[in-house]
Each structure stands twice: as structure tokens, then as C-alpha cells.
């Protein structure tokens, strides 16, 4: 075979070009590559794919751990005051007889598990998996780039996040246990928590929470800078903005949200750290009395200031979790309906609108703080306004199904289930967006049910859809379809078994922070039985993840091998790489000739036209029946 040359006349070291159907392993090219040690390739790697995998593995571990915390809490809610079966002795051994006497959860341990479940799930599991895990692995591939714009910064981002995770995990083992002031760490409670007798000045739960968050936020900022610069700078020739895959758009919007919303929380965490360590009183108000004695801090601080700084991140964080998930679902929908997304541009503009408006709605979490009516109206208007682009997004996906030739593959099942979960999560948010109805529902289980529908079923449906969809590109093997479907049905049924009863309990007035699940409250009695439904659902949901975990590890080594680099017959650039892609990704420079989702183009010989293929052999154009 004659040696091919690129447009500059340089010989290319392989004639299996972009989009070939020969896998990396078979092609056997080894070009001029700097040899890296094992540590540099797998641990301190600067390759975006390895960093993506590191993010994903760490985040999945944290997800499992934080889910485990909740599984234990659900026992306490269903059977308050009874020893936790199986792991009760372990709780006593690890946390001591003060925190778990005889295997029974104390209120302190319950609060600690609750706060850390929220913190770790949101900041260290779902966002790192969706934004950083998929973002690192997929975005440069979809852009046709050899790596991220700043590979070393990318590594720093992961290790900063990793240190944050380690600090959070270590905080469980310090005297007094991990942080227990809720995932929101509201002062003045958080200012005074874990201080005094029996607590270390720095090695205590709340202080470690703050330090861990500063590391985590720093990692997120580095990651978002990198994603933004990569998307702006490293698009392949011909990859215009309106040809970008929707997942890339979702990552861009998410990165901007993280970039602009995380720094205020970082500043707030630093201020709270100063309150705790150096005796300042940014968040400690005048006249604060703790345990019958005036708090020694000077006063003059504002607890509400923390809430503003926290929720300025806290609300965009919801969209940080859901937008990448939305982007993944868009990719999977287009591929599995075998038709372009219905109104790609509306999808993109809606994501941009959501990103922008989400920065203007934070105080709807604070209607109960006594804000003035005009301020309240401002935040109500923008909160309700954000439902418009959200509904457009749902509509785009729904209409994309119309007339499609749908493949009910495992990733598509998860993506399809994303739609109703997103719908329930969004619609249940409307009563919370109006201050009048929020007054009634505030701090009830209704709120818990609402935001979990967004952050658990919806976000994780997208996560699983992405895992099943891109697993073959990362490993060269497919995940097992049958066990994927078992995993899907177990997940979707029992997710709803957990979260829908929360909405009912919330309407009945069950408070979100009751340690006994409502057993000691007269008005909660009619809905107490739902605690058992939720707890049993949570435990079965945990069992339902076992097929996925086994499938994941089994398929890495024993799964069915892919027969081409493009096993899903997709159109976007990540499928133009060898499988799995090497460091540098593409065998030769890649160019883009068409939009992202050219499926079922009339007259084309195949039902997909990849972005990277210059020419398509066409059959005769079909004539209009009326012609």
C-alpha cells in the first residue's frame, strides 16, 4: 500500500485514517512517542482520557460511599432507636460508643451522615462524574483535539479534587465525627459546631469540611478554565459553533456556571474558616448566646450573608449537575432515534438561557428569611422564567422521538427515563418557586423529593446513559445489554420508590430534619408507613447496582469486543478515533464537514453521515410524491 501523505506532504505513519474501522490494537502504530513511566501514565497522568477515568472512578466510589450513608440513615428513619443490623457493630467500632452506642445511630451521627451525604453526593460525586469525568474524556475527542488546552492544569485539577475527597473522608475519623451542620453549613450553627471541649482546633468535622471544600472548589475552577479554553481554542477545522455536539455545549455552559458561581462560595468558606480559626465574626450576629453564655466572638456579623454567598453557588449547582446530563441525553437520543435532534438550535439556546438565568434565582431558597416583597418578586419572576427554556429542552427531546427509528438499547432506556424524571423534578419545583406556597412547603420532605428528582434520578439517568454509551470507546468492549436492562429497571423503579413518597410526606408536613422519621409527631402518623416504602426501596436500589458493578468490571476484561471504532454508528468526532484512543487521540488531523447529527439524510447510502467524512456516495435523490 502506498504511504499516505497529509496536506503538508509529510508522510503519515499509518494509512488507517480517521474513521477507519480498524481498532487501535489491530492497527499497531507506534509513532514518535515520549515514553512515560507507569506513574506518569496511570497516576500523575496529563492525558485527558486518563484524568477523565480517574475522575470517574473516584466519583463513582464517592457515590457509592455517600449512598451507603443514606442506606444507614434510612434504617434510623424506619426503625428509630433500634440497632442498625449487620453494620451496627462496625458503626460503634469506627465512631465510638458516644456516636453509635450498641449500633444505634445517635442524633449527632445521623446529622453527620446527612450533612456528608449531601456534600459528597453533590460536590464530590455527581458533578465530578458528569462534568469532569465525561467532560475530560469526551470533550477533546468531540472537538477533534489531541488533548485539553492545559494538560498539567488538568492534572492539578484532579489532584486538588482528590485531596478534597480524602479530607472529607478523613473527617469521619476525627474526634466528634464529620461535619453535622447540613450540606449548606448555615451559620451561626456552623460557626460554633465542633468547637470547645473534646474537639481539636483544626482536626474537627466542620473545619475539615471547609478545608475540603476549598480544595474541591479550587479543582473545579481549574477544570472549568480548562474546559472553556479547550472548547474555544481546540475545535477542529470546520467545527463551527453550531456544529458542536450538544454535550460540548452543555459542558461549556456548565463550566461558565462553575467559573462564576464557585468563587463566591470559596470566599464564603474562607470567611467561615476565619470565623472558626481566628475569632472573626463575619457570620456571627450580635448577642449570640450558646449554652447559656454569650459567644466570645465580637458580633456584628450576618448569618444571612452566608446564605447569599452559599446559594449564589447552590442554585447554579443544580444546573451544573443537570446540564451535562442533558447533553449526554441529547447525544444518546440523536444516535438512538437515528434522526437529528428536533431543533438543535433551540436546544443550544435553551441551555444558554438556563445558564444565564440560573445565576439570578438564588434567593428563592431564602423566602423564609424575611426578605422584602420587591426582592421576593424579582426572584419569583426569574425562577418561574427559567421553566421556559427547561420546557423547551424537554420538548425538543420529546419531539426528537417523533418518527424516529428508535433503538431501545441500554443507554437509550436510561436516556428515555431521564425525560419523565426531569419533568417530575421540574414541575414539583414550581410550588417552591412561589413564595406563598414555599412558605408552607419549606424544609419539608417535599423539598427533598423535588431536588432529588433532579439530582438523583435525572442526573444519574444521564450518567448511566453516558456510561453505557461511551464505555466501548474507553475500553474497546461493550457493556452487557441484558444486565444493563436489568440495572435500568431496578434503578428506575426503586428511584421512584424512594423519592415519590417524599413528596406525599412533605405535603403532610413531615420536616426534613426529623431524626426519628416523624414517629414522635402526631401529624406525621398517617404517612409514617411511607418510611418503610422508601427505606426498602433504597435497600433494593443498592442491590440493583450490583449488576452494574459486576457488569462494569466483567466487561472491562471479558465484555464483547467492539467490531469497529464506531459501534453505535454515530456521527460525532469521538467515534473517529481508534479504540481506545491513544495519547493524542487521532491518527491524523481531522476536519469537520457537516453538522453534528446528520442521521437518515435523504438519499444517503447509510443512515448516518459522520462529521469527519468529506464525501458521501449518494444514491438517486428520492422524488417528491407530488412531483
Amino acid at each position, binding site marked *: 500500500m502506498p504511504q499516505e501523505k497529509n496536506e503538508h506532504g509529510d508522510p*503519515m505513519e*499509518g494509512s488507517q485514517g480517521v474513521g477507519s474501522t480498524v481498532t*487501535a*490494537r489491530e*492497527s*499497531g*502504530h*507506534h*509513532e514518535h*512517542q*515520549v*515514553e*512515560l*513511566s*507507569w506513574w*506518569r501514565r496511570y497516576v500523575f497522568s*496529563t*492525558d485527558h482520557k486518563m484524568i477523565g477515568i480517574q475522575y470517574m472512578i473516584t466519583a463513582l466510589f464517592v457515590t457509592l460511599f455517600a449512598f451507603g450513608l443514606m442506606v444507614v440513615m434510612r434504617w434510623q428513619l424506619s426503625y428509630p432507636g433500634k440497632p442498625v443490623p449487620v453494620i451496627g457493630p462496625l458503626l460503634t467500632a469506627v465512631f465510638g460508643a458516644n456516636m453509635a452506642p450498641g449500633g444505634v445511630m445517635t442524633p449527632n451521627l445521623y446529622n453527620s451522615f446527612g450533612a456528608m451525604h449531601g456534600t459528597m453526593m453533590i460536590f464530590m460525586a455527581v458533578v465530578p462524574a458528569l462534568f469532569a469525568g465525561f467532560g475530560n474524556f469526551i470533550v477533546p475527542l468531540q472537538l477533534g483535539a*489531541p*488533548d485539553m*488546552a*492545559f*494538560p*498539567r*492544569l488538568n492534572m492539578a485539577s484532579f489532584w486538588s479534587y482528590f485531596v478534597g475527597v480524602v479530607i472529607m473522608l478523613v473527617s469521619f475519623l476525627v474526634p466528634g465525627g464529620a461535619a453535622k451542620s447540613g450540606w449548606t453549613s448555615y451559620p451561626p450553627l456552623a460557626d460554633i459546631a465542633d468547637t470547645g471541649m473534646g474537639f481539636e482546633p483544626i482536626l474537627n468535622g466542620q473545619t475539615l469540611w471547609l478545608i475540603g471544600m476549598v480544595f474541591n472548589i479550587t479543582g473545579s*475552577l481549574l477544570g*472549568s*478554565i480548562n474546559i*472553556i*479554553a479547550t472548547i*474555544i*481554542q*481546540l*475545535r477542529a477545522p470546520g467545527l463551527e459553533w453550531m456544529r458542536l455536539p450538544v454535550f460540548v455545549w452543555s459542558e461549556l455552559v456548565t463550566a461558565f456556571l462553575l*467559573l*462564576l*458561581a464557585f*468563587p*463566591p462560595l*470559596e*470566599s*464564603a468558606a*474562607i*470567611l467561615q474558616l476565619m470565623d472558626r480559626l481566628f475569632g472573626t465574626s*463575619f457570620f456571627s450576629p450580635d448577642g449570640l448566646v450558646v449554652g447559656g453564655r454569650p459567644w466570645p466572638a465580637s458580633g*456584628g*456579623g*450576618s448569618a444571612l*450573608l452566608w446564605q447569599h*454567598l452559599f446559594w*449564589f453557588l447552590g442554585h447554579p449547582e443544580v444546573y451544573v449537575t443537570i446540564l451535562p446530563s442533558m447533553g449526554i441525553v441529547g447525544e444518546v437520543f440523536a444516535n438512538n432515534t437515528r434522526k437529528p435532534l428536533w431543533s438543535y438550535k433551540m436546544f443550544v439556546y435553551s441551555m444558554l438561557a438556563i445558564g444565564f438565568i440560573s445565576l439570578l434565582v438564588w434567593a428563592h431558597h431564602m423566602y423564609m428569611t424575611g426578605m422584602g416583597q420587591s426582592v421576593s418578586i424579582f426572584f419569583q419572576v426569574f425562577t418561574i422564567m427559567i421553566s421556559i427554556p427547561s420546557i423547551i429542552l424537554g420538548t425538543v427531546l420529546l419531539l426528537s422521538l417523533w418518527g424516529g427509528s428508535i433503538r431501545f438499547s441500554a443507554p437509550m432506556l436510561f436516556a428515555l427515563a431521564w425525560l419523565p424524571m426531569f419533568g417530575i423534578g421540574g414541575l414539583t419545583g414550581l410550588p417552591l418557586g412561589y413564595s406563598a406556597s414555599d412558605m408552607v412547603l419549606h424544609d419539608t420532605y417535599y423539598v427533598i423529593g423535588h431536588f432529588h428528582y433532579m439530582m438523583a434520578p435525572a442526573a444519574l439517568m444521564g450518567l448511566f446513559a453516558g456510561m453505557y454509551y461511551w464505555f466501548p470507546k474507553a475500553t474497546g468492549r461493550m457493556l452487557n445489554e441484558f444486565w444493563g436492562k436489568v440495572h435500568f429497571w431496578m434503578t428506575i423503579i426503586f428511584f421512584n420508590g424512594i423519592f415519590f413518597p417524599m413528596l406525599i410526606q412533605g405535603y403532610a408536613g413531615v420536616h426534613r430534619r426529623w431524626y426519628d422519621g416523624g414517629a414522635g409527631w402526631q401529624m406525621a402518623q398517617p404517612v409514617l408507613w411511607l418510611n418503610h416504602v422508601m427505606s426498602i426501596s433504597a435497600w433494593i436500589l443498592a442491590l440493583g447496582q450490583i449488576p452494574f458493578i459486576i457488569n462494569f468490571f466483567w466487561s472491562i476484561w471479558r465484555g464483547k469486543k467492539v467490531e469497529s471504532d464506531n459501534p453505535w454508528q454515530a456521527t460525532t468526532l469521538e467515534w473517529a478515533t*481508534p479504540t481506545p484512543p*491513544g*495519547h*493524542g*487521540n*487521532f*491518527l*491524523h*488531523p481531522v476536519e469537520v464537514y457537516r453538522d453534528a447529527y446528520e442521521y437518515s439524510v435523504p438519499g444517503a447510502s447509510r443512515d448516518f453521515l459522520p462529521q469527519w467524512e468529506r464525501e458521501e456516495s449518494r444514491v438517486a435523490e428520492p422524488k417528491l410524491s407530488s412531483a
Partner: protein
Amino acid sequence: MGAGRKQSRGTKTFLCITENESRDGTGNPVRHTTQPDTRSYNAKIGIWVCLAAEFMLFCRLFSANIFLRMRATH
């Protein structure tokens, strides 16, 4: 870790370098020259984006301080 082992596996070792990209000594493919459609280079974009984050960070720190000073009673 030697080259022989790596080459014998015949995987994860190939890449391409276009006229805009080179290696920085650690195996990272990097782009030095200006991207045609943005007329900018990576570091310039990166530092402006980083400045946006820093702006938000210090704005919040200063505004928090000003807010507290303004309502201070003593």
C-alpha cells in the same frame, strides 16, 4: 516501563502532530500558535477566564466586607 514493553503492546502509543501542535517534553500535545477563528492562543484565553473567576472571588470578599462595615453598629 521500557519502550520495548510499550511498543510490544502496540497500543495507546499513536498520535499525530499537526503544524500547530508539538510536544512539551512530557508527552503533552500542545498548541502554540494562534487559533485562526478566535485569533488568540490558549494561554491568553485561559488567563482571561481565570481572571473572571478571580474577579468573582474578590468581588465577593470585598463586597462582604463593605456590607458588614456599613451595617456595623460599633
